[in-house]
């Protein structure tokens, strides 16, 4: 793995560690400040575990005023701060810095209000994504964005990354599903954007914060929209004899006016890998597998399924199976959800890429990836959120072989550049973090990046909040950009990854 460039370490801060720890202990309960080596170890990395750094100290505040006081102190003393939610991010957004305080929001773990009349939940940022749904599901409601790590990832982290999920084509990502946030700026100012009503007037500061990867403020409260669960949800499992026919069918489903709740594609390598791993009963002779999920009222779903069947048959599908029960629907998804661990079982290491492409370019992208796979002599398996164009190629390799590692890095970089060339982007949902920083110039020119840096400067003039993330440090397009998992030791191996 390439050497990671990080902001210059401020030696004076390192020298003042004991004084800083002492001062932080005055701003929150003493037990909330961690500074011993063994206490800091769990915070050394997030889910991009290939990079580790020991923070100066970790502080776990318990309320917004404490966050404000801590940031005010760090601002006045020029101490860098890295915010962290549940640490499930895949792009290194919560990677600590040696001369920075890591501020963990783990103690913000309460749901503050459930307001059915206004269809919203007011929650602290440390509550998990799924925790929100669990709190309202007995009344038939749910929170729509469903990143695959939803069991563990926190809603505050979701806001930082603008997390999506398999249902984002129909239901949007985090930014489309939150109504308000409370946030503390680097100088300690507490601010509130939005509330329980739609579209707050003036600059959409909530929209700016969502997806800002912890660079503009520390979110201390989130108001999310909740939706009523659809009456009926059904899925279809469809095999195709070629990538082109399956890709065309997916495109045609969209262009025919159907908006599926979810639509996923897996290539042959992944069909085999996941079927071996999870015994999902996938059609192993198929070159491409399409899972289409539809929701709505009974007759609406039946009508849509008929249309999907017609389109798939027209595109020569080799098999087609409809879910007849909730159990069967979940079994369709079981293999797909096991995609990452299945690849982990096939090779010592895998890299997960996260590019977005226009849906219609899928066949082109997969053929290009196949060619690259042959060129680099490394196997690759592909899964694709066909609904919203988010492509996750998984490159399998052996990290102990330095030459394979180098080739994998090149391969991954070429894939992301291919995504951009096809009209897509370098990250659909995992974020830029430290991982794809240097690839930003594949998409943006100096003016674009400068404008973003100007915004950062206007809200964090001393560049103390999560520095070194998202924006290129080297100002050149380095060959970085993947999730590296060694010996299937994903930091959260049990979490399904899409």
């Amino acid at each position, binding site marked *: 793995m390439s050497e990671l460039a990080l902001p210059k370490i401020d030696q004076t801060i390192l020298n003042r560690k004991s004084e800083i720890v002492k001062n932080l202990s005055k701003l929150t309960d003493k037990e909330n400040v961690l500074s011993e080596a063994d206490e800091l170890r769990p915070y050394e990395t997030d889910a991009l575990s290939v990079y580790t750094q020991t923070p100066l100290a970790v502080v776990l505040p318990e309320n917004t005023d404490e966050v404000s006081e801590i940031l005010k102190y760090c601002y006045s003393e020029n101490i860098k701060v890295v915010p962290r939610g549940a640490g499930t991010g895949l792009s290194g957004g919560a990677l600590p810095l040696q001369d920075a305080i890591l501020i963990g929001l783990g103690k913000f773990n309460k749901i503050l209000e459930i307001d059915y009349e206004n*269809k919203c939940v007011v929650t602290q940022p440390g509550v998990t994504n799924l925790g929100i749904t669990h709190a309202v599901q007995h009344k038939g409601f749910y929170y729509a964005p469903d990143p695959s790590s939803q069991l563990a990832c926190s809603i505050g982290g979701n806001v930082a990354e603008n997390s999506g999920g398999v249902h984002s084509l129909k239901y949007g990502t985090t930014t489309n599903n939150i109504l308000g946030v409370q946030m503390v700026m680097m100088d300690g100012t507490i601010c509130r954007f939005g509330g329980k009503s739609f579209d707050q007037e*003036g600059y959409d500061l909530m929209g700016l914060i969502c997806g*800002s990867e912890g660079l503009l403020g520390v979110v201390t409260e989130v108001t999310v929209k909740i939706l009523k669960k659809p009456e009926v949800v059904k899925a279809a499992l469809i095999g195709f004899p070629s990538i082109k026919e399956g890709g065309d069918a997916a495109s045609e489903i969209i262009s025919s*006016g159907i908006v599926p709740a979810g639509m996923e594609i897996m290539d042959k390598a992944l069909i085999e890998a996941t079927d071996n791993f999870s015994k999902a009963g996938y059609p192993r002779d198929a070159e491409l597998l399409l899972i289409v999920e539809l929701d709505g009222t009974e007759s609406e779903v039946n009508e849509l399924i008929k249309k999907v069947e017609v389109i798939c048959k027209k595109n020569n599908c080799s098999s087609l199976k409809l879910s007849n029960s909730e159990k069967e629907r979940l079994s369709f998804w079981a293999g797909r959800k096991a995609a990452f661990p299945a690849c982990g079982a096939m090779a010592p290491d895998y890299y997960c890429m996260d590019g977005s492409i*226009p849906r219609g370019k899928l066949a082109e992208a997969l053929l290009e990836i196949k060619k690259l796979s042959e060129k680099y002599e490394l196997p690759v398996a592909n899964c694709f959120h066909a609904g*919203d164009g988010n492509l996750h190629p998984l490159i399998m390799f052996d990290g102990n072989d330095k030459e394979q590692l180098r080739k994998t890095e090149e391969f991954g970089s070429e894939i992301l550049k291919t995504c951009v060339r096809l009209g897509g982007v370098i990250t659909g949902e995992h974020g830029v973090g430290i991982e794809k920083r240097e690839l930003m110039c594949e998409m943006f020119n100096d003016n674009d990046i400068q404008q*973003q840096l100007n915004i950062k400067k206007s809200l964090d003039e001393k560049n103390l909040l999560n520095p070194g993330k998202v924006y290129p440090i080297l100002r050149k397009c380095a060959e970085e950009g993947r999730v590296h998992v060694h010996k299937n030791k994903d930091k959260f191996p049990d979490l399904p990854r899409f």
Partner: protein
Amino acid sequence: MSTKIKINSQIFQDSNKVYYPKDEAEVSDLIRELYKQDSPTEIIGNNSKSFIGNKTQSANTTSLSKISGIIDYRPEELYIKVKACTPINEIEEVLSENNQELAFEPIDFGYIKEGKSNKGTIAGYLSCNYAGSRRFKVGSVRDHVLGFKGVNGKGDIIKSGGTVVKNVTGYDLSKLIAGSFGTLVALTEITLKVLPKKDSSKTVIIYPGDFEQIYDFLNKLSSSSSEISGAVFVPEQSKDKDFVIKKNSVFKFNDLKSNFSFLAFRVEGDKISIEEKINNLKKELELNNSDISTLDVYQSEPFWKKVNNLEVFENTEHNLIRMVIPPANGSKLCKYLENNHNYFVDWCGSLFWIEINSKKEEKIKDLKKMAKEFGGYLTVIKTSSEYDYGEAIFTVDKVRLMISEKVKQSFDPKRILNPGKMYRGV
């Protein structure tokens, strides 16, 4: 040679001294020059919504109306990329050929401004971020913007976003641009998410009793799995005869008794599922057939157009307020407004359009106070000729104003673009 003529030698200027840059490069050149000269400019499109917001105090006016035309439309990818001042009508027409639409239902402000349709341009919509009746289901304009290009206050061409729905690469500036009233960038290019049109629609009309019952219905409607895509409440307001006449003529439909207070909700989809949803909702709301009437698709479509054209306030000469509050406080607001001000409620109980037939700005001050107490905000969309701006037409608190100033500074350090259009100092 005056500085004006120096710019004018490059870019067309009409007899009213309005600049008409013909492409992005000219917009950039013009703003770069204005930046050098510390000379602010008002930014306009087709002038359909320029009456909204404060009057800008600037020596120049720049019209982006020549930056128009469809760049790339991919129905199968569900996006359309257009030059910023492409008329909404042109976009809707092209989308309609492929049975697609802008799902956020653009409001036609032409009716309140001058009594006739004038939808204006997509840049205008994005700059205001005012969505129509479907908002509570599909999101606002900001939720349908995938990316943009524009020129910041220094003359630099910048872009953000792309054409794909899943994109977390860098700050989401598209959201920031939405509702910024042209104070951050002069837009040159916009990419929008488009969605398939629904096969059909029906609208059910209920004639409810008191406000509690109305809001009980609205709550049940928004809590149902049988999704609705619009719900408005239009009160009787019997004291204002002129309004009653107007209301009755705007909502004159065979199956609607417009002289009563009525609540209307829309169900969209294929014909079978529309019937299924209406039946479900009737049960959930405990309605009998005798309590309701139904507008078929031929009545339903024009009905919602009239709602979104704000036709009951056509040509209004009074102050027209747009107030958004959490729906749980809606019945309280209805009680306050009852027989005092003409109004109707959209977005399933959350959006109030209120006409303040009073010269006294005190009334607006009272309403703004109420909006804040209820956790919402209000904007004076159209001002009467007597309005003296003693009460700000936008709602903002100190902290948000401070942050807005910083954000403005980062895009437009010399306040060249639409200065003061939203807030003083921004």
